[in-house]
Each structure stands twice: as C-alpha cells, then as structure tokens.
C-alpha cells in the first residue's frame, strides 16, 4: 500500500515538473523573451526528439538498422499539407492523416524488407527512402522538385512540446511491457526469440510501423512550422542525421536518444554558419563512437530507471 502511494506521489511530481517546464517556456515565448533563432532551435529540438526516439525504437530496440526514416517524415509532411492547405481541414486532421499515411507506408515498406538482415536491410530501407523522395519529385500535384510553399504556420509550442512528450510516453510504455520484451528479444537473438513462440516478423513490422508513424508526426510538425517543404529536404542525409543522434545516445536507450537529440540540435545551432564543418563533426562522431564507445552515451540503460518506471508504472 505504501509502495503504491509512493509511486502515485512520484507520478504527480513528474507531471508537475513537465507542466511547469511547458508553462515556463510558453511564458517566455509569449513575453517575447525568446528570439527567432532560439524559437527555431526549440522547434527543431522537439522534432529531433520525436525522430530520434522513434528511430531508436527500430534501430536500437528492435535491432533492425533502418536508413529510410526521412522518407516517412516526408510522407507525414506532404500528406498533412495536402489535408490542411489543399483541403482546408483542421490541423488535427492533418496530424492524424500524416501519421496514418506514414504508418501505412511503414507497413508497405516493412513487410517485404524486414525479411532482410543487417546491412542488406539498411541498404533496402535507404533505397525505399530515396524512392519515396524521387516519387515526390515526380508528382505535379505537390509541385515536384520545387516543393510546396506558403504552408500555414500551425505548429505552435504546445503542439511541439506535447507531441514530443506523447512520443516518449508511448514508446516508453511499449518498451516496458511484454510487447516491448518481445521486441528486444529480436535484437538479442532472433532465432531464439522465434523459438520461444514470438512471431518476430510481426513485432519487427509493429516496431517499424510505430516508428514510421512518429516520423510522420515529426514531418507534420516540421511542414507546418518551416513554411516550405521540398523532396530534397528529406533525402538520406536527413536519415543519417537521425542515425547520428541514435548512435550517439546509445542504441537502445530512449534517454540517450533524447539527450543526443537535444545536444545535436544545439550543435547544429552553434555551427549554423559552417554547415560542412558540422557534417565533418557528425562523421567523426559516428566513427569515433563506433570505435571507442559502440554502446554510445547511455548504452542500453535509461536515466534514473526507478523514477521513470515510477511514472509509467512499469515496475515497483
């Protein structure tokens, strides 16, 4: 009984902290304390967190290296813009439509490719990501290579913040469950997992689809903040950006993915004027992390596990 009330208290505390953080930033924004450049950073940060946490579900937890995440982000972005700007429907419809479309794309891509292993899978997902981009370039309805301009700015701080929290919450909840254990067992030993009665294909596809849906969500938020989307924005270098975050944070750690996403966002801001140098640093990060600390920042550990499970109620 004491155990229970304690965990409730913890839960309450966490909610208060989260709301406080939200209100603080909201206040700073409305009081005009945050300049344009920091507003953009704040937006990128939330979007990057969503991307990194969702890609980590596929690459880190399921152990299936995907290099096509940017493709799903593109689908979310384009479909939502069609819904909001072309069809004049409300933002929430755009969000749902974007996520759903990206999820369906994830399913269509995932079912055939997830039979492949390791580096073959990586290349196949990369290829699919690029095909999505090339197809978008060839659809006149969405202006081909020129992209769509003048998208209404609907992405606001509350959307960004709660979308990021929602993403983290869903993925943490998923991973701290029997379904999550089934997913991790695939990474650990696919053959053994299958022989323990787990339909590995189904869970690989499940993880892939959920990951793709959140990539779609990130795409929706991106499109409705930055005014313009072009197919080129979502090329495989974008997927590599996300990979850097996941690898740096530690494959298989949601906490790591969040920290790395925040860090990379600030790094991008700091190196704004030196785009090429930034890529050199990314590249070296990948190489050095793989050679000297392949488990990344966090390994597969989570920050203050007890606090976390306190909120989500996974364990005592």
């Amino acid at each position, binding site marked *: 009984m004491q155990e229970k009330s304690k965990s409730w208290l913890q839960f309450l505390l966490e909610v208060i902290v989260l709301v406080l953080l939200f209100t603080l930033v909201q206040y700073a924004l409305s009081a005009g304390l945050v300049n344009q450049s920091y507003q953009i950073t704040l937006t990128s940060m939330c979007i990057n967190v969503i991307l990194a946490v969702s890609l980590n579900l596929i690459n880190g937890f399921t152990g299936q290296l995907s290099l096509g995440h940017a493709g799903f982000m593109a689908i979310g972005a384009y479909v939502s813009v069609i819904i909001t700007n072309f069809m004049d429907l409300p933002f929430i419809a755009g969000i749902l439509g974007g996520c759903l479309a990206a999820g369906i794309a994830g399913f269509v891509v995932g079912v055939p490719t997830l039979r492949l292993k390791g580096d073959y899978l990586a290349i196949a997902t990369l290829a699919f990501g690029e095909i999505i981009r090339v197809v978008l370039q060839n659809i006149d309805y969405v202006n081909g290579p020129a992209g769509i301009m003048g998208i209404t700015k609907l992405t606001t701080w509350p959307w960004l913040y709660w979308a990021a929290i929602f993403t983290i919450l869903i993925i943490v909840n998923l991973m701290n469950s029997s*379904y999550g254990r089934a997913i991790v067992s695939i990474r650990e030993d696919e053959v*053994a997992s299958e*022989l*323990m*009665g787990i339909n590995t294909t189904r869970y690989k596809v499940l993880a892939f689809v959920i990951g793709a849906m959140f990539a779609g969500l990130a795409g929706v938020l991106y499109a409705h903040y930055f005014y313009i989307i072009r197919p080129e924005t979502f090329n495989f270098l974008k997927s590599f950006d996300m990979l850097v975050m996941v690898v740096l944070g530690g494959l298989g750690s949601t906490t790591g993915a969040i920290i790395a996403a925040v860090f990379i966002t600030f790094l991008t801001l700091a190196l704004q004027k030196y785009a090429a140098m930034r890529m050199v640093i990314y590249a070296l990060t990948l190489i050095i992390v793989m050679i000297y600390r392949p488990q990344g920042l966090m390994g597969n550990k989570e920050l203050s596990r007890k606090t976390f499970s306190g909120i989500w109620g996974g364990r005592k």
Partner: protein
Amino acid sequence: MSLLEIKNLYKSFGGLGAVINFNFTIQSGELIGLIGPNGAGKTTVFNLITGVYRPDKGQILLQGQNIAGLPPYTICQKGIARTFQNIRLFKDLSVIDNVKIAFHKNVDYSLFSTLIRLPAFFQGEKDIETKAMEYLSIFKLDHKRDEIASNLPYGEQRRLEIARALATQPTLLILDEPAAGMNPQETKELMELIKWVREEFQLSILLIEHDMSLVMGVCERIYVLDYGQVIAEGLPQEIRNNKKVIEAYLGEEVGKC
C-alpha cells in the same frame, strides 16, 4: 495416439542427405535420448522438429497434426520448446526478462492497454512477474533475477535456458546437449533435475547427449543416429550391447564410451 510421431523425415543440404528417412515416436511422459557420433544429424533433427529448417520430405505429427514446415514460433505455440547446444540466451537482458519473454505467447493484455496503461496491463504484468519468479525459484535462480544473463556462470546459464524453455509451457521439451561443458557433479544434478522436471510438469522430454552415462541413466528409450539414419532403437541395455552402435562409436572416437 503418440504425442509426437515422425514419419520418413528427409532433409538434404546441397544434395547431401543430412537426415534420411527418420522415423520416431514419443509418448506422453516419455523421456527419450537421441545419440550418435558427431555430424550424425542429431541437431538437424531438432531443427526440423522445431521449424528452424523446413523438411524436404516427411511428416511430423504432433498429437496427430502435421507441423512439418510451420514457422518456429507456431510450433512453439503448439507446445514444443527447446534449448540449444551452444547456449542462446538473450544475453544483455536480465535473468527474469529472459523468462518473461517466454510467457509472451500467452500474454493476456492488449497492445492498446499497454500503450495507455489500462488496469489490465498492470494485472497482466503482475501475473507474469509472479509466474516468472516461480520458474526462477525452481531452478534456484530467483536470487539472481536482475543479473544480466551473460554474467551468469556457465551452469546457471544452462539452467536458465531450461527454465526459459519450460516457461513456454510445452508438452514436449527438447534439450540439445544439456550437459555439455558440465563436470560430473553438475551432470548428476542435471540428471536429477531433468527427471524431476518431467514428473513435475507432466511433459515428454527428448534429449541429445554425448555423455553416455547421462543418456543411459535417465532415458527410457534411445535412438541412435549415424550418417542421418537411425541405426538402432531400444532400451538402454539393448543399445549398450548393440553391435552397430558400438561400431559407429568406435569408428569415430575410440574408447570414449
């Protein structure tokens, strides 16, 4: 009806017959040994039964139903569980998570209630936790529940693998060289454990073993495989005196048996 009946099972790799017209039956509650020299095709038989390989020909009837060619997870769900020659635990996961994963096929809460944490989830998790602890304590691993599996000593890893297989609630348990790498004392304990497990869980056990004393000691019937074919079948005493068996073994490793 026999629990498992295998008829004319055949599998070849690159034209070379690895298992040739293998016939086999096991009744409910039986404990059977499968022996044979290295490369005789024993593990291949296991891989065929558990669906890792697809047989070229033949039937595998589990309670009268043909399971040949089904995917491994379906076969496991139908009640066949196994361990591996070279231990295949989920190495980076905790001891208890290894066992919990085996319960997943019977998980009774939905993905939806997982994601938004409905009461069904908490209840289900509590049940899984309790059951997993039961299995761990049977195998004297309960005090190591949060240890990372790969950090366990060898003997405990073997026990954990058996616990994990049992947690899938099989009617037939297949053990691939369970005593490999164990000293005589550990082997003896394992023999007792295997017998006890069979009684306690009311299941049939099929085991591959190199250690003759273990096979002769616990198995009720023995099949001997050589070059993919059954060369003898019978009670331990019969096998011990079978000329073909002695030849097959002596031809391979002199004096070991």
